[in-house]
Every structure is written in structure tokens, then in C-alpha cells.
């Protein structure tokens, strides 16, 4: 009778399918605590995910890296600012840079992450060679990060740099020079002179600088430093 019940249990594959319907991390976590088979099911389910987002969760470096390790097929990663304030540091970015999925990531969002610097960002983007979309707005990165992106992310199409006040024209120029697939940059609230944008457009006339109107004399203009 016991063996009959065993055979009747849902196979791991089917469990993973059910878990992929469960959208919240919390529910997945609870499911992984039920028994060994369900734990395997959750692991399998994570490996099938295409997108991972920690937005809104108070997650530390090691926990984030652990989940990214399990979700080795993801193409999109969102580790942006949580309502608790940034919990992930350069150490977390470094650990994530070592995972299987990094080379295949098409999109990364790190906006508002006050705890990261060039050090972590450079380590991450150096491995993210397929990257097409990057949101690194509201961080303290400098031109150094942009150089790393220019050198390692040839596929980059869009980049959001709003409020990256430590980035100068040098970083932007290197990026636009080297990344021929670059289509748009969000430059809102950046501390670069308006004519810098004109020089960028001279390099790549099809480049979209968002939000355009603000930088053509309408709205806020930052004085040249």
C-alpha cells in the first residue's frame, strides 16, 4: 500500500511546473521547506525561470547569489533598490559575476543601489558580455564603470544613467564611441554640460538621449563643472 502511494506522488517535473505558477518568492520558499522532493521541485522551478527580480525584498549578498546560482537560465536580473534601502553590496555583485547565467544576461537593473560602487559593477559587467539593457541610474558609479561597459558589453542597446552625478563626458564619450549598437541613453539629472550631448550626437546621430527636451534648453540644465 505504501509503495502504491509513493508511485502516486507527483513527479518532480510536475511539481516544478506547478511552482512556476507561483509568482511570489515567499510561497516558493515555503514550498522548498515542505520536504526533500518539493525542495528539488523548487530548485528545478528556479532553473526554468527566465527572469529574476529581488525588487522589494531585503536580501543580502549571499542569499541573492544563492538564488541567482539556482536560476541559471535567466536572461533578466533585477536587483534594484528595495524599500528597505540597498542591501546588496559590491561583494554581492562579485558573487553574482561568478554565476553561470551572467554571460547570457540580456538585461540587468541595479537602479537606486546606494551600496554599490565601481568595484562591484566592473566585476559584474566584465562577465556580462551579452548585455543589451542596463539600468544603473541613481548609483554612485563613475566613468570607470562606463569604460568597463564599453570594453565588455558590445551588444549594449539601452543604458539608463539618470542621476549618475559622478559620470562625466569622458565616460559617455567612450561608451558612445565604442558601443556601435547603442540606441538610447537616459541622461536625466546628470552633471554634464548641454553641449556634451551635442558632441555625443555628432558621434552617433541616431542616438536617443532621454528625456530629450530637458537638455535642449527646456527645463533643468546643469552648469558645466
Amino acid at each position, binding site marked *: 500500500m505504501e509503495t502504491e502511494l509513493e508511485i*502516486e506522488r*507527483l513527479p518532480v517535473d*510536475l511539481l516544478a*511546473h*506547478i*511552482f512556476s*505558477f*507561483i509568482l*511570489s*518568492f*515567499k*510561497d516558493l*520558499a*515555503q*514550498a*522548498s*521547506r*515542505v*520536504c*526533500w522532493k*518539493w*525542495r528539488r521541485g523548487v530548485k528545478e522551478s528556479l532553473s526554468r525561470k527566465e527572469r529574476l527580480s529581488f525588487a*522589494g*525584498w*531585503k*536580501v*543580502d549578498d549571499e*542569499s541573492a547569489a*544563492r538564488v541567482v546560482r539556482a536560476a541559471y537560465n535567466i536572461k533578466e536580473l533585477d536587483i534594484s533598490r*528595495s*524599500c*528597505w534601502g540597498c542591501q546588496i553590496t559590491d561583494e554581492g555583485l562579485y558573487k553574482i559575476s561568478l554565476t553561470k547565467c551572467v554571460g547570457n544576461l540580456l538585461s540587468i537593473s541595479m537602479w537606486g543601489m546606494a551600496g554599490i560602487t565601481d568595484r562591484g559593477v566592473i566585476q559584474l559587467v566584465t562577465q556580462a558580455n551579452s548585455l543589451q539593457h542596463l539600468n544603473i541610474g541613481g548609483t554612485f558609479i563613475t566613468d570607470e564603470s562606463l569604460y568597463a561597459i564599453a570594453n565588455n558589453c558590445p551588444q549594449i542597446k539601452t543604458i539608463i544613467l539618470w542621476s549618475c552625478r559622478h559620470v562625466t563626458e569622458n565616460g559617455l564619450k567612450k561608451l558612445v564611441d565604442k558601443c556601435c549598437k547603442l540606441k538610447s541613453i537616459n541622461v536625466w539629472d546628470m552633471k554634464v554640460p548641454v553641449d556634451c550631448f551635442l558632441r555625443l550626437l555628432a558621434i552617433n546621430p541616431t542616438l536617443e538621449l532621454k528625456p530629450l527636451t530637458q537638455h535642449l534648453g527646456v527645463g533643468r540644465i546643469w552648469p558645466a563643472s
Partner: protein
Amino acid sequence: MGKTIKLISGDGEMFEVEEAVAFQSNIIKSLADEDNADDCIPLPRVDSQILSKVLEFCRKHANSPSVHTKFAAIPSELCPKHDGSAAGASSSESSSAHSETCRACYDAVMKLVQWDLEFVKVDLDLIHHLLKAANYLDIEDLMFMAVEGAANAIRGNNPEEIRKLFDLENDFTPEEEKEILKEYSWLDDPFEP
């Protein structure tokens, strides 16, 4: 009654159903396609109680669009309002365009979805069996709803509650359990979405 198919459940009961009903199952469809002199299809892994529930679902879905897996792409031939009078093109593009603009189709789809949701509001034991049957018989829509039913039973519950609902044993040792609880401890903090 159109052409019928005879199905034999695991416990020997015979069900005779219309092809359109039985062919919701891709497995039954392919078995029937084979040159079968007997025209009686045995389904040893499904007992009569479950098979009858499965057929109830299939009967409801037989002449309806696949609402869950194809996102209500309704071929205009099935539209209750237009009665097949719309151009017979059954390409998926014209289908989804049709259902987007046709109120009658939209309403029909919604009604079916409601019926499905009620259908899976059953005890977990039955969902368990439906899941296995849908998996074994390869019935897309039933699979979708049974999975949704199972997922619903998991959402918002803690491990002990889940174990009770699914009749599962905690096979972790106390040491293992301690480690496992740590793994997602960052999710145990309350937060505001």
C-alpha cells in the same frame, strides 16, 4: 451523436464519448489515429471516478476555444454571435483579432473560465488525481486549471499547512530543517510591497 470513441478505465468501466470530447486528450487522439481494429481505448492508469470527472471537463471544453493556453484565440467559426458567417480564415492572427473585438466571444470565454475555476475548487485529493490524469492524457486546458488549483493551495500557506493539505511527510532531520529554514530567512521579514 457524431463519431464516438470507447474508453476503458483502469477499473474496467466503459465510457463512450464523442470524438470531439475525447480528442481533447492528445494521447487519446494519437491512439485513435493508429489503426485500431478494436476501437476501444484502454486507460489503465485512470480509474472511473477520475475519468468521469475528466470527461466532464472535456465535454465542457469540446466545442470551445482553448481559453487558457492560447489566450482566447477564438476561430470565428466558433463565435456564438457570428455563426461562422465571418470569413473562414482560421489563421491565429485573424482569430485573436476577432476575439479582441467580439463581445460575444469575450463573454463566452469569461463564462468558461468561471466554470473552470469552480471545477477546480475541490479537495486537493481530487486535484492531485486530475493533475496526474491531465499529465498522463495530455489535456492542456485541464492541466492548466489543475495546476492553478494546486498552486492556489500552496499560496499563502506555511510548510506545515501545505503538508496537511497535500498529505506529505516532513522528511528533514532537525539539523537539516534548521539549515533549510536559514536559506530563505530573508523572506521571513515582513515588508510592505
